[in-house]
C-alpha cells in the first residue's frame, strides 16, 4: 500500500493534533480532577429520603463554610425540588455569592432527567438509582437558568429554576 508523501505528512499532522487534544484533556482529567461527573454513588430511587442529602429539610442551599456551599436537588417529572422558603413555598430561585465553591448533588425518584445550569459547566445526567454530583466554582455573576436538558415527559420544557450569582 502506497501513501503519497503529502498524505503521510497530513496524517502525522492530523493524528498529532488528536494526540495533543487527548494530552490536554487527559492532563485536566487525571491530574487536575476535571473528569466529567462519574462517582457511581447509588441510591434507592423509590426511597431517596433515606439518604441524608435528600431529606426534605436538607434540600436546597446549605452553607458549610465561609465560601463553600452544598446544593441538594431532587429532580422529578416535572420539577426541581430545592426545598421551601420561610413561608413554606417551594423555592424556585436560589442565590450564591460569586467565587464560592458549590457541591451540586442531584437525584431522581422517577425517570431520567438533565441538570444544566445553562452557560456553566454544571451539566449532568440525572438517573434514577444514582446521585449525580459535581463541585464547581461559580466564577461569574448573573442570573442562570437551570434547565432539564434530557427529555423526561410531556412537561419536560416546564422543568426549570433560576440561580443568581451575586457579587
Amino acid at each position, binding site marked *: 500500500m*502506497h501513501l*503519497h508523501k503529502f498524505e503521510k505528512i497530513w496524517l502525522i499532522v*492530523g493524528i498529532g493534533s488528536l494526540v495533543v*487534544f487527548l494530552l490536554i484533556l487527559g492532563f485536566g482529567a487525571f491530574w487536575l480532577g476535571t473528569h466529567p461527573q*462519574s462517582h457511581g454513588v447509588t441510591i434507592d430511587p423509590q426511597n431517596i429520603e433515606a439518604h441524608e442529602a435528600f431529606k426534605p429539610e436538607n434540600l436546597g442551599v446549605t452553607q458549610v463554610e465561609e465560601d463553600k456551599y452544598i446544593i441538594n436537588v431532587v429532580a422529578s*417529572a416535572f420539577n426541581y425540588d430545592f426545598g421551601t422558603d420561610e413561608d413554606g413555598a417551594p423555592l424556585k430561585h436560589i442565590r450564591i455569592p460569586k467565587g464560592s465553591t458549590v457541591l451540586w448533588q442531584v437525584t431522581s425518584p422517577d425517570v431520567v432527567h438533565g441538570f444544566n445550569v445553562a452557560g456553566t459547566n454544571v451539566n449532568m445526567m440525572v438517573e*434514577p438509582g444514582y446521585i449525580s454530583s459535581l463541585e464547581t466554582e461559580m466564577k461569574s455573576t448573573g442570573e442562570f437558568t437551570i434547565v432539564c*436538558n434530557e427529555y423526561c415527559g410531556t412537561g419536560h420544557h416546564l422543568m426549570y429554576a433560576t440561580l443568581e450569582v451575586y457579587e
Partner: protein
Amino acid sequence: MAMEKLERFYDKSRLPLTISKQEARLYMTFIYVAFISLAIGGLMGLLQTLVRSGTITLPWGIDYYQILTLHGVILALIMTTYFIIGFQHALMGKTVGMSDKQRKTAWIGFWVMVLGTTFAAITILLGRANVLYTFYAPLKAHPLFYIGLALVIIGSWIAAFVNWHQVYKWKKEHPGEKTPLLAFMVVINMAMWFIASLGVAVAVLVQFIPWSLGYAETINVLVSRTLFWYFGHPLVYFWLLPAYMAWYAIIPKIIGGKIFSDSLARLAFVLLLFFSIPVGFHHQLTEPGIDPTWKFIQVVLTFMVVIPSLMTAFSMFATFEITGRKKGFGGLFGWLKHLPWKDVRFLAPFIGMLAFIPGGAGGIINASHQMNAVVHNTIWVTGHFHITVATTVILTFFGIAYWLIPHLTGRTLTPAINRLGIIQTIIWTVGMTIMSGAMHIQGLLGGPRRSSYSEYGGTEQATEWIWYQAAQAIGGTILFIGIILMVYIVIKLAFFAPKGNEEFPIAEEEENAEPTPKFFDNYKLWVAITIALILFAYTIPFVDIIQNSPPGSPPFDWPIGNS
C-alpha cells in the same frame, strides 16, 4: 504483474452487471419508503421549529413530543435504513449479482421491516410512545413500539445476510479475486451494523419488551442506556459509510476521474469497522454511573475513528486534483475549475463533503471528555447531527437518487430535472446553514435540545435563546421547501422522466494502479479484531455497572401521557 493485469482485464469486461427488472423493483421499493418517510419526517421537523419558536401551537391535542418522536424515528431509523438497504442492494446487484433466491429473501427482510415500522407508527400516532427515538428507560411506551423496533432491526439483518451470501457466492465463483470495492464496502458496513445492533436488540428483547408487558417489574436503567449507546454511535456510521461508498467509488466516475486508491479506501472502511463500535461512552460522558477512566479510554478510541475520515478528506481532494490536472488545469487550485459544478450528481454530494468539515470538528468537540459538559444535551448537538446526517449524508443520498432512480426505472435525468436538483441543493444548503448555525450558537449559550416552547420563567438567557429559535424556524421552513422539491424530483424521476438509459456510475482504478493487497478480503480477521476491541472497551466497565447496580426502576407511563 502480468497475471495481475490479466485479472484486472477480466474484471473490467465483466463489470458492471445489468440489473434485472425484478431486482430493480426490490431496490426501488426500499427507496420509495425512504422518500415517503422523508416527506413525513420533514413535515414534523417543520412543525417542531414553528412550535418551538412560539409561532404556532399544535391542534387536536397533538403533543410536541409526539411529533418529535415521529421525526426522530422516521428519519433517523426508518428513512436512513430503507435508503441504505435499497442502495446497498443495488450496489451488490451491480457488482456481484443477486440471484432469484437472494432477491426473495431480501423481500422477506423488506416486509419484516414494514411490519415493524407499522407497529411503531401506530403506537406513535396514538400517542402511546412519546419516548423519542432513544426511548430511554424508565419512560414506558406501549410494548408494540419496542416490538416494532425489534422487527425493523431483524428485517435489516436479513438484508445483511443476503449481502454476505452474495459476496460468499461470488467469491466461490471467482476464486483468488478480490471482492469488488463497492461490494467490499457493503459487507463491512453490514458487519458493523449487525454487530452494533445486537446491543440494542438485546436491550429491546431482554429488557424493554418483558418489562413493558409487565413480566419484569423493574429495568436496569444504566444497562439499557449503555446497550443503546453501544448501538447508537455505530448507527451514525451506518449512515455515513454508504455516503463514503459514493464518495470513494462513484463520484470519481461522475467527475471523469479514477479511484484515487483502492487499497486506501478499503483501509478506511476496515478502520471504521474497528473503531465505530467501542466508543459508545462518549454519548454517556455526563452520566453518574460509569467509571471516568473507562470513559476516557473510549474517548481515545473515539479519536481513533477520526483517522479514517482524515484519510477520506485527503482522498477526496486528491481525486479532484488528479482529475483536474489530467484535464490540463494547472496551478495550485486550477483543478477546482474543472469540477462539474452544474451536475447535481456531483454538486449535492460535494456540499455534503464540505458540511462534514464543521460536522467532523463538532464531533471531536462533543467527544472531548470533560469538555462535553459545555455542549451535552444542548441544542448544539442537534445542530451537529443536522449538518452531519441531515446534510453530509442526506445530500449524498440525494446525489445518489438523481442517477439511481432513473437507472432503476429505465428513465433519464434530464437537464431540466438536473437544474431543479441544483436549486434543491442550494435551498438545502441555505436552510441548513441558518438552522444548524443557529442551533450551534444557541447550544453554546446553554439552550437545551428536545424541548417544546418555553419561556423558562422569563430569564434573560431564555429571552436570548428565542431569537435563535426563530432563526431555526426560518431555516426549517426553507428546508421544508427543499423537501417538497426533492419529493417532486423523485416522483418525476420515478414516473414521468423520459425513457432511456441512465448510467450507474462506478469508478475504475487507474490502468497502472498499485494492486490491492489480498489480505483485505480477510473478513474473519477484521471481525475478530472488532470483537476484541469491543470486549476490551466494554467488558470491565460493563461488569462494573452490573455489579454496582442500584435497585431497578419500575415503568413510568404517565410522564409521556401513556397511562
